[in-house]
């Protein structure tokens, strides 16, 4: 989360567009920015899991057996003008890449609204979600700062024992054997290429700059590891 915010700052202050793929060392719950962090909202099964608050909105994500991405776009890119269109622009190429692997996902197409939104993002329904046979396998959320946007999302690949009611894409497709480092790396690379093409920017592989690492380190220490941040919405 700290690195994602650091990349958002680079987008806002230096007009840098970035795409990052990552996984989590331990199963972790990331809360939507405005979500309450109250024990009664959480399942007992999750009580020992780490929790971190995101900058972006939406519901909580259980990061386990999934692939997370974060994408930043500066204010001077036309795509930064439409929040809904940005979801579609990033999700569409993922449909194409997954289809090439015989994983036929599609947009949900309709939004589902509830008086009380479920705690987990995967229990909520937005028309721009990606679904496989009706089950949500990818959802994204955004944060806009000084016109720049960070959008991050989670591709649910395997069913998590912490949320067995949300089937993973590879479980549904009976392709669980694909959940290997090599396949995940290939998927990230292919998705990066088609997303770069979709936003009409050249793709260049690069490590974080010293400045981005330093800012991320400060954010990790002073914000994302602090109870004051993670429990602040009550």
């Amino acid at each position: 989360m700290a690195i994602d915010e650091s990349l958002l700052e680079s987008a806002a202050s230096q007009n840098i567009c970035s795409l990052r793929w990552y996984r989590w060392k331990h199963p972790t719950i990331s809360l939507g920015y405005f979500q309450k962090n109250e024990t009664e909202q959480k399942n007992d099964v999750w009580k020992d899991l780490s929790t971190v608050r995101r900058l972006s909105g939406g519901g909580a994500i259980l990061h386990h057996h999934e692939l997370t991405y974060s994408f930043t776009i500066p204010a001077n890119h036309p795509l930064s003008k439409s929040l809904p269109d940005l979801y579609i622009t990033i999700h569409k190429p993922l449909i194409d890449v997954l289809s090439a692997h015989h994983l036929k996902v599609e947009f949900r197409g309709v939004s589902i609204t509830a008086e009380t939104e479920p705690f987990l993002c995967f229990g909520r329904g937005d028309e721009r979600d990606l679904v496989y046979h009706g089950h949500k396998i990818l959802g994204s959320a955004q944060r806009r700062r000084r016109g720049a946007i960070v959008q991050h999302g989670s591709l649910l690949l395997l069913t998590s024992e912490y949320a067995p009611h949300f089937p993973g894409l590879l479980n549904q497709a009976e392709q669980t054997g694909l959940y290997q480092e090599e396949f995940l790396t290939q998927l990230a690379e292919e998705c990066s290429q088609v997303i770069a093409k979709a936003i009409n920017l050249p793709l260049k592989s690069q490590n974080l700059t010293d400045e981005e690492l330093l800012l991320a380190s400060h954010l990790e220490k002073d914000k994302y590891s602090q109870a004051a941040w993670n429990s602040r919405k009550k």
Partner: protein
Amino acid sequence: MDQGNLKFTKTHEWVGVEGEIATMGITDFAVNQLTDLVYIELPEVGSNCEAGKVFGEVESVKAVSDLYSPVSGEITEANTALVDDQSPLSDDPFGTGWITKVKMSNPAELDLFMNADDYRKFCESEAH
């Protein structure tokens, strides 16, 4: 409020002035960009805001956006009705959708903003 009497920023906030009090909100253009609003966080009455700095946050379509204060000063009122019902922001952004009132510390900041005609032209250029 009559839009002809308002001032507008490039970040799509509006300001209406009565004496030393500025009423602030976000424009219809901003609301249309944000689409369906579901949360708003307002500044506390008595706190200070600074021109160009964040004074609140809104969430729409799973997107959280910062709100930037057009002027500096002390927050004297916040439209707390918006916390439970954000619809005035889209239904009546220049009226009941006002967000805060501020006792200005530097009214000269208003000179930097656009009038309604210039703002409309600015929005047209943003949309293309």
